[in-house]
């Protein structure tokens, strides 16, 4: 304890954290700053980027163009829906997992985690094989006399693949909070006359809210900035913000515009996540400490 206190007080603390700090500054802070500067540079289609001149033109065109609004709005609702579905699937799944017996629990936990070991690109291609015009789903539909549906390159395909990818990020934090519960508290509630459903609603759920909160923040953040899945399953027409940024950089070659959109996405994400965190934490902070 004493050495810890000494480290906190002296300059030693800064020295000891310097390697991590350098890494953080070099890999996160500086690139972010460069992106911010880039987003303020003047761009001209004939002469390219003029790094000596600065302008807010990219931001004002971002604010003035309904085309961008549509893409931002789509990104937000797809991310929100993904988060909601992850809560609806992940929380019960984590609860069931926590109630499983000794061998099965570890087996299913590993099963939930294995998708993380497979590249997102591979999984996205897997979904496009399933959902494509000639995919397994449509073949099955036709075999039963139905007409084929357009599944691939729709928000549906993007959401379903995002949920698939993000689910572990919801299950793990919820599972961690469930581990901290005293199983006797559930028995106590039962003995006091509560039904199993009431026990879950009044005793279990409120206690795992911090886990659900972290889960939603992780899932929303990752979904809103996801690139591979919207790129592969949303196609050229169904754009999300990350694919839009990619297009600006590599098709339009308008780097400053791409940087401006990236900064805007970062700010919007921050705003949504911080206010969500405040809202939920405010409700549960007092009781859960």
């Amino acid at each position, binding site marked *: 304890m004493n050495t810890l206190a000494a480290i906190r007080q002296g300059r030693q603390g800064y020295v000891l954290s310097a390697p991590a700090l350098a890494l953080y500054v070099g890999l996160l802070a500086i690139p972010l700053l460069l992106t911010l500067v880039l987003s303020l540079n003047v761009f001209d289609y004939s002469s390219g980027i003029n790094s000596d001149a600065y302008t807010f033109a990219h931001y004002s065109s971002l604010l003035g163009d309904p085309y961008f609004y549509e893409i931002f709005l789509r990104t937000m609702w797809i991310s929100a829906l993904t988060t909601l579905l992850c809560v609806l699937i992940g929380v019960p799944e984590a609860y069931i997992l926590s109630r499983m017996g000794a061998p099965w629990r570890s087996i299913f936990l590993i099963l939930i985690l294995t998708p993380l070991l497979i590249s997102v690109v591979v999984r996205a291609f897997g979904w496009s094989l399933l959902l494509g015009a000639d995919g397994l789903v449509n073949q099955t539909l036709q075999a039963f006399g139905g007409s084929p549906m357009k599944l691939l390159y729709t928000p549906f395909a993007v959401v379903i693949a995002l949920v698939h990818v993000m689910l572990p990020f919801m299950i793990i934090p919820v599972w961690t909070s469930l581990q901290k519960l*005293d199983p*006797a*508290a559930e*028995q*106590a*509630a*039962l*003995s*006091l*006359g*509560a*039904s199993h459903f*009431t026990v879950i609603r*009044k*005793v279990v759920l*409120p*206690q795992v809210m911090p886990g659900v909160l972290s889960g939603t923040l992780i899932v929303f953040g990752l979904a809103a900035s996801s690139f591979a899945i919207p790129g592969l399953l949303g196609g050229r027409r169904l754009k999300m913000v990350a694919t839009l940024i990619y297009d600006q950089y590599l098709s339009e070659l308008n780097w400053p515009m791409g940087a401006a959109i990236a900064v805007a996405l970062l700010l919007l994400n921050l705003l949504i996540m911080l206010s969500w965190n405040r809202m939920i934490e405010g409700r*549960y902070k*007092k*009781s*859960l*400490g």
Partner: protein
Amino acid sequence: MAFVQLENLGKRYGEIDAVVATNLSVEKGEFVSLLGPSGCGKTTTLQMIAGFVEVSSGRIVLDGRDITHAKPASRGLGVVFQSYALFPHMTVQDNVAFGLRMRKVPNGELQQRVDRVLKLVRLHQHAERYPRELSGGQRQRVALARALVIEPPVLLLDEPLSNLDANLREEMQFEIRRIQREVGITTLMVTHDQSEALSISDRVVVMQAGRITQIDAPYTLYEHPRTEFISGFVGKANLLPGERDGAGVVQVCNTGNGELTLSLRPEKIDLREKGHGRLQGKIASRFFLGSQWLYGVTTTLGELCVVRRNDGSAPLAEGTAVGLDWDAALLRVLSVDEVSA
């Protein structure tokens, strides 16, 4: 018929018998402790009564109603857990009110009953606190209040004091007894602490390896332990070889080979001057316990434990030769343990 009746109650986990054909009757208003070493089946018995563990065989009857397979919620028993199992996200007030809310008790009455029970456990000033803001003893009393407020027919206490430090434990023993008396509630307590069981129960049930080995009032249990195990588990005991003399009176055999095993409590032995008394020995060790001195005395029958009241006189030094004496009527014959603990 007794208020709570366990009839041939048994529990098997696979190949292992946790509780074997247990019979117990508890009268209304009685405070009964289940005492035994860990793994003796006492907690399993309590959990079967509470309804958290499925009964394998036998019956549980509560006030004439068979509750063997009833759901915990429908039994309406008050349970206090070893970990207290408070709801950490609710205030003391809400914790206590939980059972009443489940019973849809109207608000006015609910508030009254919560206030009354919080006064009973002396926590009415902490109603708005959260469990983590309370001390161990206070949490314990919240758990007690939460179980009592639903006015259950029976209160079940699972090692209620084992998480408290020694001073607080003693204080809470008296507190639990006071509350139990005041409410007049039938209570079953599980404990592995013999002093706890002796001090607050009307009757103590000793369990060993899934079986009940003795049921008696605390004083009788202490004075007349049935087996070697019980005499050693409940209080301290000196085990001596013994035999019956011609008149059928039990005597200690000084030669060391008797057909009987006798128990003699340490406080029942008198220390005399060297040469007097029934047995000669030498003080090998002494421990100061505050109100008492605990002596280890080496004799031809092995090392005996003797307890003397600290009456202010100088204690005997280690190495002193002494004579030991006792009233032969205080020797207890023990039967051989029928179960290995």
